[in-house]
């Protein structure tokens, strides 16, 4: 498959593209099998439950809880070095029952608690819009 610009997309690039397109439009969306309603994450070609190929991308209300996190001051990724320290986190998005990774913002490291309620906030980072998460106000 190619983009409208003609660049070749790998299978995985094609499968994740709707996630990033949705994020660019301010939506946190996840793929659900049209046959058995199972969410497949990360997106696979065939539903891991019933092997169906069709998906609908369901918008989440963006509410989640923190499962775990780290505070990183070391510049592992040069493109993020002007944003250090960052807080990469593993979170549970509640309405879709999906564990995803993200970064936490608008929170001090000392305030972080497991299970803390958080919500999505879309931020432009580099050349794309990322769904990041902040404490629910």
């Amino acid at each position, binding site marked *: 498959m190619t983009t409208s610009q003609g660049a070749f997309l790998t299978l995985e690039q094609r499968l994740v593209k709707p996630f990033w397109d949705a994020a660019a439009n301010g939506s946190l969306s996840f793929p659900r099998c049209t046959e058995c309603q199972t969410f497949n994450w*990360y997106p696979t070609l065939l539903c891991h439950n019933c092997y169906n190929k069709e998906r609908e991308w369901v918008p989440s209300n963006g509410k989640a809880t923190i499962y*775990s996190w780290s505070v990183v001051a070391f510049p*592992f990724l040069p493109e993020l070095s002007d944003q250090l320290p*960052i807080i990469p986190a593993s979170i549970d998005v509640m309405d879709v029952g999906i564990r995803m990774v993200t970064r936490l913002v608008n929170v001090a490291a000392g305030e972080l608690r497991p299970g803390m309620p958080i919500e999505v906030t879309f931020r432009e*980072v580099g050349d794309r819009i990322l769904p990041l998460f902040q404490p629910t106000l």
Partner: protein
Amino acid sequence: MAIPQRILDAGSIVGVGESRHVKRSGKSTNELLIEACKNAMDDAGIDPKEIDGVIVADERVSFKPHKFEIEFGLKQRRFHAMSPWYGGCNQGWSITMACMAIAEGLANNVICYMGRASVTERENWDPRKVHADDPYKSLMEVPFGWFPQPVYFATYARRHMIEYGTKEEHLGKIAVAMRLHASKNSNAVVRDAITLGDYFASPYVAEPLRRPDCCLINDGAAAVVVSRRNSERDFRKEPIRVIGASEAHEPGLTHWPQRAKYTETTAGLTTDAFAAAGIRQDEIDFAVIYDCFTSTLMLQIEDLGFCKKGEVGDYIDSVGVDINSKMPINPHGGLLAQSYVQGMNHIVEAVRQLRGEADLQVEGANLGVYSGFGDTDHSTLILAKG
């Protein structure tokens, strides 16, 4: 799932060998492996041309079976295998796979090896590469800064601290033990011991992990020769064998953050190795445990059944893990301080301990366990003489 005893009974470990373990050797992976393999075959007292099975314990290694055969002038190969996973599972797997080839009559003398010139050949071996190359990780995780390994394992460590009150000091005690052990090892990358004070003075790399919590990245190689047990011939050294083994695999590398509980490793699915060997955890004299991070070593102590889930902090405080403890862990210094050969060096150490020829010898070492963590893939071997 336990490996059938019939397979394990077919093979004995008759030779072990390593390259020098240094930060930067200036040598390629292939050269380090040729050295390690020659040392292992010399240790066994076998001629390289008697090797008829070659197992590469990591598919990234460039020294593939046909290169081994060209190098050592073999005219014929009967068996070969290579494994796709990354981490410590491959190494345990390679030994049981060698036993299987022998059990099924496909080979008599199998060499298993792993090596990586992680510094000299940095472009090939950057540990971050296997993750950055994974499409889901590069597309869905790297953009969020969830990368590389210290970040993932920091979140596993934190979860254990959250749920069980484990402290950074417990991680530090493991780091101190590994550095103590390596300081007594004539073939180790890091030879200076540290104190707990030194540990706490190190800055965080990814909280709560500090540099001493993270394994080495260095040049090194190790090889093991597995031969038909009870064959008519004599080998140079007392044979060592695997008396129980188990392997478990959970869904894919790509899904690491989606593991339901970060406080549990796949090691927990391999405890049937003990039952298969007919021994209890408290009978083990020493353990060689895959220590990519102090926190992963810590979780395996629990998951292998050496203490109850959640109680490893108490275990570290009361039983301890160093050479003076009831069950020393990684007397060679492990990945943390001896060498990053992804656990093949651990199996070599286990063999030396059981033979009584280790640099830092555990007194009365008769039973050892290898715990080969690979996150979603795990191999556990119980080793004994004979």
